[in-house]
């Protein structure tokens, strides 16, 4: 570590013992557990980090020292601390992460490895419940890595045994010195060749001492392929020392103290930062990038209808529900200058809607990083008060890039940053809620999304009705397509492949002539689009811990889209006002806390137990416990379908006079195991409509009007598309006189496209 001028914070840190005493009694207000907007109560933040770190001259490694003060807020004593050392996942193929990646046939690995070494650990003090120090002098202890099942050399979890136990109400102060070498950008952290450096998971971080009753334990699993992170809320003071060329090119999870970095005698600079009540800390520097700042003010993004709705749901005034101002900071690559407004617009709209629905963003700043081109691995990730997004040159505004990823990562400030679930086990609780919320923000803020195609890096609106065949490497059919010939390895000569024609954007353009043959506009409703992630069988229930899921696809489905579709289904069944109350209450109750899966159901049952579906045939309550049992613990699919609609003319006029001219009968069936009451709508000849409710428990259902005055023309089950979990909406409606001729145009569009492709390839060779 370079010598540098002693700054006040450095001195404070070196004194060690004096650290953070003012923090030990620091109290933070957190919402109480009653009502939609609970009254404030108080809980302590029992964890404090004071870190000094210096980026070494090579731009790849950090040398740091930190003092951690941890308060035991649980009713059980402990004589050890557990640490995450996530960065050691990148020290070689022996880590559990890399091993699991190999088992999942994930073939990538860091181009240069990274690792963290903890040089020393000293326990500075351990207090009893009355804050009396139980140690006579600082004591050196061992930083002991814990071998993991399947990866005995994994070093992503360590423990330090303490000289005496930390009793409930007591605290321990530990000082660590460490050196962290980050990998070349890979899976969330690392560096790029142009000086870009993204410090995430860069310091040893305490696990969470949690549990109930006698079950209190250190929740500190190793870093695994399918998992993300989990930590406790803490207050951070972080001093980052950098080469002078990084001045003005720095963003962090903390608020930068002072208007400029401190100049050190050795020519380096130091940024002093602070952050309160966050559970991770990241920072990014890039000497090429430009840092922009704008003020977020709700009045610049107003959606009056939504404000009215939220105000009504919460019983407040419109002014009271508007989000509070905050500072938006963007670290942008110079070549993405044209995207500056789009980035800020996305940040602002996300802050607005998330704040409107769930309560204001509580921190003074939010920083967004546009990663360097060769460090895109670090993009699309969330840390408290700092997110990384990503964009490409030539992107059309129609494709919502970088808007989509920016809104999503900012949403994590609310779902993960504030409501901080255990991502190792319940990734759906942040990714699912956030995917649901992201889709809704995009639906409100960007209604004009549509499909595009790319030519020479620029995007144009349109979508191919069909697609040219593409085969996996080794598939002999690719030879027929004149795309590739793959010779398999038969022992005599090694395998090799031969590409006859390379499929690139320009070639596709010439073959398909998009302006002629593509559907000019394939418009998106991002909420409905999420249904494309559905599969005919779910695979594993949502309740299976994320890190134990079978594969990446299942994780992606169970953590992101399936819970998002489940939440959207619940929202549509109970109605917007009720839903806003549920989510607001859940969010406020668990802000700065770690909710468990059952907590959400409890809030739902509290606010929506009286939701009923009304029809001519009666009123039916929705049993949310049963719904959740099927959606979360169970694995059944949902599919309601119309089987038939029949109008039977009465055989005699006398019969018609006595009962009406028609008998009308409809039949519905349930093709999946998931059952709940569902709405059914019938449209009559004169345009009038009737509403029924099918309780949905039976596998099929018939309903008959003996004396219908007219014929029924159409029957629809779930007519307003409330049930996003329904596997097939195309069988939800039956119309005796089909009205759409879209099938004809769909066929013609496909024909026109095929003509052009065949004509083009007819002239090749």
């Amino acid at each position: 570590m370079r010598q540098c001028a002693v700054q006040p914070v450095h001195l404070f840190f070196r004194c060690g013992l004096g650290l953070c005493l003012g923090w030990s009694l620091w109290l933070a207000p957190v919402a109480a557990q009653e009502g939609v907007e609970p009254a404030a109560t108080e809980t302590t933040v029992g964890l404090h980090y004071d870190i000094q770190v210096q980026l070494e001259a090579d731009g790849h490694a950090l040398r740091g020292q930190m003092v951690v003060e941890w308060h035991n807020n649980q009713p059980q004593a402990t004589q050890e601390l557990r640490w995450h050392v996530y960065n050691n996942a990148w020290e070689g193929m022996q880590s559990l992460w890399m091993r699991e990646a190999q088992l999942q046939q994930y073939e990538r690995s860091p181009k240069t490895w990274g690792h963290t070494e903890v040089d020393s650990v000293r326990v500075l003090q351990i207090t009893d419940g009355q804050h009396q120090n139980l140690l006579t002098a600082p004591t050196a202890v061992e930083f002991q890595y814990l071998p993991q099942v399947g990866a005995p050399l994994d070093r992503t979890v360590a423990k330090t045994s303490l000289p005496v136990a930390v009793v409930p109400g007591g605290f321990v102060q530990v000082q660590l010195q460490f050196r962290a070498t980050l990998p070349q950008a890979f899976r969330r952290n690392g560096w790029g060749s142009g000086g870009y450096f993204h410090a995430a998971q860069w310091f040893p971080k305490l696990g969470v001492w949690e549990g109930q009753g006698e079950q209190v334990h250190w929740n500190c699993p190793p870093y695994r392929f399918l998992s993300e992170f989990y930590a406790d809320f803490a207050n951070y003071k972080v001093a980052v020392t950098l080469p002078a060329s990084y001045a003005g090119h720095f963003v962090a999870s903390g608020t930068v103290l002072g208007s400029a970095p401190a100049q050190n005698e050795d020519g380096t600079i130091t940024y002093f930062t602070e952050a309160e009540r966050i559970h991770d800390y990241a920072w990014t520097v890039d000497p090429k990038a430009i840092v922009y700042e704008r003020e977020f003010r709700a009045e610049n993004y107003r959606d009056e209808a939504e404000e009215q709705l939220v105000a009504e749901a919460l019983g407040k005034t419109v002014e009271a529900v508007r989000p509070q101002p905050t500072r938006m900071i963007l670290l942008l690559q110079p070549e993405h200058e044209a995207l500056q407004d789009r980035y800020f617009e996305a940040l602002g709209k996300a802050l607005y809607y998330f704040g409107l629905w769930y309560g204001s963003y509580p921190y003074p700043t939010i920083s967004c990083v546009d990663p360097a081109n060769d460090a895109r691995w670090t993009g699309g990730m969330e840390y408290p008060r700092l997110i990384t997004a990503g964009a490409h040159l030539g992107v059309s505004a129609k494709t919502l890039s970088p808007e989509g990823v920016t809104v999503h990562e900012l949403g994590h400030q609310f779902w993960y940053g504030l409501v901080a679930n255990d991502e190792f086990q319940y990734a759906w609780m942040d990714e699912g809620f956030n995917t649901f919320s992201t889709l809704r923000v995009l639906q409100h803020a960007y209604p004009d999304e549509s499909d595009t195609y790319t030519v020479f890096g620029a995007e144009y609106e349109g979508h191919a009705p069909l697609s040219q065949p593409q085969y996996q490497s080794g598939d002999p059919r690719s030879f027929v397509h004149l795309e590739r010939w793959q010779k398999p390895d038969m022992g005599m000569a090694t395998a090799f492949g031969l590409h006859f024609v390379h499929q690139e954007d320009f070639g596709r353009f010439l073959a398909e002539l998009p302006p002629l043959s593509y559907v000019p506009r394939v418009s998106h409703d991002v909420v409905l689009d999420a249904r494309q992630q559905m599969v005919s069988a779910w695979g594993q229930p949502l309740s299976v811990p994320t890190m134990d899921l079978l594969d990446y696809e299942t994780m992606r489905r169970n953590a992101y889209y399936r819970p998002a579709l489940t939440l959207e289904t619940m929202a549509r069944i109970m109605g917007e006002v009720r839903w806003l109350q549920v989510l607001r209450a859940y969010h406020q109750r668990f802000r700065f806390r770690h909710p468990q899966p059952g907590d959400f159901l409890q809030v739902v049952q509290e606010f929506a137990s009286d939701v009923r579906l009304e029809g001519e045939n009666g009123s039916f309550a929705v049993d949310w416990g049963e719904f959740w049992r099927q959606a979360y613990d169970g694995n059944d699919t949902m599919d309601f379908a119309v089987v038939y609609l029949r109008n039977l003319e009465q055989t005699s006029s006398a019969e018609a006079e006595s009962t009406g001219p028609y008998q009308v009968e409809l039949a519905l069936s349930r093709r999946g195991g998931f059952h709940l009451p569902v709405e059914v709508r019938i449209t009559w000849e004169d345009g009038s409509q009737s509403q029924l409710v099918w309780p949905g428990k039976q596998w099929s259902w018939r309903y008959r009007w003996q004396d219908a005055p007219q014929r029924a023309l159409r029957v629809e089950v779930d007519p307003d598309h409330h049930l996003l979990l329904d596997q097939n909406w195309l069988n939800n409606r039956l119309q005796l006189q089909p009205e759409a001729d879209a099938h004809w145009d769909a066929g013609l569009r496909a024909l026109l496209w095929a003509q052009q492709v065949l004509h083009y390839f007819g002239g090749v060779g």
Partner: protein
Amino acid sequence: MTDYPAPAPTTLVVDAMPLVETEEAPQPPPVQEKSVAHYLLLGIAKALAKPRVLLFLWLWGFLLALLVAAPVFSSAASHLQSVGTSSHFDFVDEVPAWIVDEWRRVDPRAWASVGPNLALLLLLVSLANLLWTAGWMRIATDSAPGHSLRNFFAGGGRYFYPFLRTWLFGCACYAGLSYVFWGPPAIWFFHWFVPGGDLNLAASESTTFWLKVVQQLFYFLALWVVEIWLDVARASLICGQRRSATLALIRGLGFVLRRPSPLFGFMALGFGLELLWIATMDALRTTFDWSLLFLVLVVPFGRLVLRGARYIGLIQYYAAQTADGSQVEES
């Protein structure tokens, strides 16, 4: 005794004193070089004069395309008639993405059939085009009147195998170019600009962007050169009534190297007219809100005429520029 023709007047050099005969040597009449546009227009006229051939080719293309589109049409008829949505939904101008996704998810078999069908058809049309190319070129060299398809097919049949050999050579060229532009040589080239030749590792996205653009552009140009070369070689086969594909390729290469500008100009003009035709037809449909059926019927017709015109015009041009010209009559 044979009467030998009088010797042509010559310039005599005697003691470095040139004695020039007073009578000037007769010069051949100046040949007016015809523009490539002339040949293209000639080709269009000849192609339009063969409606039966055009009709046959149009039907051929239509039926093959129908094989691809029929499962889609059938599936759409089953699944989309009762969808019912308040949003605009017609596949002509707009369709909601969720309906397309839903349709594909619910009926994956219809979509799965497109790939294998299309792959086979692409191979088929590429090979069949050897017949059609020879047919058009044969028509260009044949002054026989009439609209029968006989000459068209006779040309195709007679020259199919020499053409097939050029086709195989073309495949090898394509493979070679794909290797050069997308394989290790390209990586070696990119190495000068990007660490490891990996475009993803460029510190600047602009570098990646422009390298990709140049890569695609030059790849396409290289393929185009090969395609012109093959067409010229085929023209030389028919023009000289030859059978050797190897010699034809050598002659074709020489011809392309000697006359690159007219050849590229000719081809570019042909493609330009094709583009104009497509754009005009599409604009007409949009303006008058006609059905997509209009495009299905009309666009291939124009494209076939212009492709035929390119083959006819090319062989006429080749004939005019070489000694093989005696085989070809302009009509």
